[in-house]
């Protein structure tokens, strides 16, 4: 009798997990195994047979200069979006402080871009960054600087794309920092003040260490976001000019859906998966340490 109810309970529980587990298996676990397999074949979506080529796709990838260029662009893209977003978010949160009248209005305006569709705002930004009459170059001209080919010049295109991402996410980081700063105990700051610490010392030695878990969380989440940035690149530059905005993800997209190199694309996606897993493992170990620290 007991055995039978145990079996029944097991079945009931499994039934509860099925509505989530079936789609996870079909659209996530199976594709994961499949992409691993595909990284060892050569195929173009059309021909009836997939040709098993062993490690050839990986060897080819490691010999491909476009791969190294995209790794470099990806690194620059990640640093160029993550660092300004975090610094800007922290700066804004510090400016807003604990209780400033009217801060709700500022918060709303700064956060608003986060909810808007990336494609639509990228289109708006492509007009702002238009080289001849765009707002960007008008402002540069007004302060006496030469015009820039924001999205046309390989030297500047990445900056142009980054601007949109930073504008969109800085308010998001700000919200996290506002909460983190609120949790810094005022008596600790006062004690540091009594010990003769100035504003900058208080910030460096009390505030910054106490909000480091938030900083770390934002760093990981924003990096993973940046690794997956597609919409803004697709609208603004399509990876160009001359590959200057082609990230790893964009290279993967182009080889999969533009040149139909299934095997090559799959080997790039394995590289992306490895990077993300490493980042997550890092975040897991570090956040465990931080729990101890708190």
């Amino acid at each position: 009798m007991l055995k039978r109810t145990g079996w029944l309970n097991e079945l009931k529980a499994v039934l509860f997990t099925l509505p989530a587990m079936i789609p996870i298996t079909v659209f996530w676990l199976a594709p994961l195994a499949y992409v691993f397999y595909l990284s060892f074949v050569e195929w173009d979506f059309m021909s009836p047979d997939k040709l098993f080529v062993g490690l050839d796709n990986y060897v080819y990838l490691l010999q491909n200069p476009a791969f190294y260029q995209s790794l470099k662009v990806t690194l620059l893209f990640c640093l160029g979006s993550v660092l300004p977003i975090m610094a800007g978010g922290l700066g804004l949160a510090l400016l807003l402080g604990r209780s400033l009248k009217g801060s709700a209005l500022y918060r709303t305006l700064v956060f608003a871009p986060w909810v808007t569709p990336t494609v639509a705002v990228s289109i708006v930004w492509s007009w702002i960054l238009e080289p001849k009459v765009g707002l960007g170059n008008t402002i540069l001209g007004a302060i006496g600087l030469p015009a820039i080919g924001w999205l046309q010049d390989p030297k500047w295109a990445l900056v142009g794309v980054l601007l949109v991402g930073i504008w969109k996410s800085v308010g998001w980081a700000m919200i996290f920092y506002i909460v983190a700063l609120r949790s810094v105990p005022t008596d600790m700051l006062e004690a540091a003040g009594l010990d003769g610490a100035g504003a900058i010392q208080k910030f460096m030695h009390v505030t910054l260490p106490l909000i480091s878990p938030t900083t770390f969380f934002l760093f990981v989440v924003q990096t993973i976001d940046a690794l997956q940035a597609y919409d803004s690149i697709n609208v603004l530059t399509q990876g160009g000019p001359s590959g200057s905005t082609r990230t790893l993800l964009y290279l993967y997209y182009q080889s999969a859906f533009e040149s139909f190199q299934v095997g090559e694309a799959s080997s790039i996606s394995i590289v992306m998966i490895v990077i993300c897993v490493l980042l997550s493992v890092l975040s897991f170990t570090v956040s465990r340490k931080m729990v101890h620290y708190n």
Partner: protein
Amino acid sequence: MKAVYQAGLALRHISLLAIALAMAFPFYWMMTSALKTNDEIWQFPPTLWPELPLWSNYVEAWLAAPFGQYIANSVIVAGSIVLLQIINSAMMAYALTHMRFRLKGFLTSIIMLGYMIPSTAVYLPSYMILSKFYLLDSYAGLIISNAVSVFSIFLIRQAFLQVSHEMVEAGQIDGASHSRILWTIMVPLTRASFVVLALITFISQYNNYFWPMLITKNPDLQLVSAGLRSFFVEGGAYGLKWPLIMAASSFTIIPLLLLFLFAQRTIMQSVNLSSGIKG
């Protein structure tokens, strides 16, 4: 001392106001550029407010492509995904937190793993699987392939962990089934988390572009971002009809800004709540 404090306060307000206005300025620029004539929009230096606002540009842009259809597509798809995710996240989270079964540890680690791997990395094989099921170019394909979110499961799991297991036991003693306990006790108790799930999922699915663009080629099924992007590049619109493009961007963006103004407290709080998941 007081004067210094006052001056500092004024300085903070001035810089914050300047930053906030700069952040909002692209929206203003979009809406006013939409009112300009083609001649005026190419004028240098640009005008801050159109000499003669052409409100008809909005009507012309709305009629130039099936934007009503695109918005409806986005709302239908995002709405269905929200409903499905509420159901499967609630059931999954309930099993993981308040039921005892052998596979629990295994399923939890699968979900954890799912949190690490970027969905974009498996778009290619997912595309091929959808095509095997003949689900490309269909609402069903769009909805089913986004039916589960590991993020949503985590969010609800976190909320259910806060509910004492005694509530479940009390329900069982009264003879209530698991589904009754889930939908009449657990969900109402944690409704705040479900509101968060609904808002975040709706916004991100409504704005979704990459995956829907890959799996739908039929223009009638395009979501609003893909529809706007086609309008941007198609039919010589590129570079020639900037006022119309700005008008079209406006009615893509404005509904979300309105939703945000309406629910801003919840949305900003929800961002924070979601941070608890990773920690």
